[in-house]
């Protein structure tokens, strides 16, 4: 028994697709899976072999953050279908969040570095 609700039916039917399109989409999903797995494996291997405070560590740390953002982008754009959404929804959610969180990071990490000399000998 179909419910008579035009608000739901209107948009949710847009996303329906055929068997052939489904095949393409599944291929894409498995490709993204492969990328995410490889990135995670690379992160773990680097995490084990490059020690903190070594000369390479700063480079690795920045690389970790870049790889994390890459992984997040794949999850949001492909798995959460944000890439297929209307651009107003996509920008409204993503840009607002990214700008706000960058502002927070800029503010807070700077404050943390300023606190460091005061708190170094803090008891556990």
């Amino acid at each position, binding site marked *: 028994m179909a419910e008579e609700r035009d608000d739901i039916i209107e948009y949710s039917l847009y*996303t329906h697709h055929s068997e052939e399109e489904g095949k393409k989409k599944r291929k894409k999903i*498995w490709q993204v899976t492969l990328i995410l797995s490889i990135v995670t494996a690379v992160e773990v291997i680097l995490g084990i072999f490059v*020690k903190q405070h070594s000369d390479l560590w700063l480079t690795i740390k920045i690389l970790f953050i870049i790889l994390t953002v890459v*992984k997040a982008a794949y*999850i949001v754009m492909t798995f*959460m279908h944000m890439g297929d959404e209307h651009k107003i929804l996509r920008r409204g*959610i993503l840009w607002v969040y990214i700008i706000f969180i960058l502002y*927070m990071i800029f503010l807070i990490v700077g404050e943390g570095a300023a606190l460091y000399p005061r708190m170094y000998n803090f008891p*556990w």
Partner: protein
Amino acid sequence: MAEHTSNELSALVGMGEERRQSPVGASYGKLMMWIFLFSDALTFGGFLVALGLTRYSYGGAWPIGEETFEGLPFIAGSYPLAFVAFMTFLLILSSVTMVLAVEAGHRMDKKGVTKWLLATIIGGLIFLGSQAWEWSHFIHGTNFGRVELSDGSQAIVKGKFGEINNFEVLRAGSYYAGIEGAITNENIAPEDKNLMHAFRHAAASRKLSGTSEALQLVLHDGTVAKVNKEKDENLHMIVKVPGAVHPVSTAAHKDTWIHEEDGSVDLYYEGLTNGRVTYGANMQENEYGPQIYSNFFFFVTGFHGFHVTLGIIVNIVVFVNVLKGTYERRGHYEMVEKGGLYWHFVDLVWVFVFTFFYLI
């Protein structure tokens, strides 16, 4: 049916059919799910930014992921980050099965949705079980614990803890008076649980004395016993808080650690027999680093685990509705998509927790 209602509505507000489209091109439910996820992402973002602030304010004393998380269930030894990597991979896989369920829903393939959604639920349950194991491992702590050395420095201790074979009774108390031979894991009192537990309890409550060669402890009933223990292997210490003598060690430079040739064994047992040891973690103390470190661990991974739990419940509700054919009758599987959005979000958060809590 639907046509009729919408025409009436359009006539009512006085605009054409084509203008009734939502500016974001998504249904109300999906839009609200995105707005909820946006706010939830701010909460997690707040946690992680706070973690960054705290971490920066502690400098080198902050524990390193590969030093703290190196255990595996059922297997002894040190496997840095292996278990967390497994958990991350598991969550990514359950995200994949979820997106496959959504894709099957777009083709109105009830069988496909059922199969992949079930796989997602199972993946989520395994993840939750893994997290429970990790919490218990973190709370229980290592056999060595963290010691305060005689100069006031704090060091975490690594290496292979020599197995405790038995306790040889020297002066029996009320409980162990009737026991013949040495105390082993078979005949130990329920109050003392097992040899390792009794040893750690004695060390933490200053009931352990002697040197690494000859250790004595007092059990719950006042029994004095000699500890028969294998020698520890490769016992070395990483100084986290400097004291009068020992500077802070760094993970990259092994020469800053205290090795056996620098007298690490005597230093360790000197601290241990004076009760200057901390085992495991709780809200008051922990062996890994600054107190706020374990509080962040409990809070961040706990809040994430809470989200996973909710996600599993949502998935189970959706799964039951798939089986009942609710969405088949409705004409679309959008509810799977909405539940999926939440589930992917949980995966997304873990990707960041993995980097900022464990890796960096």
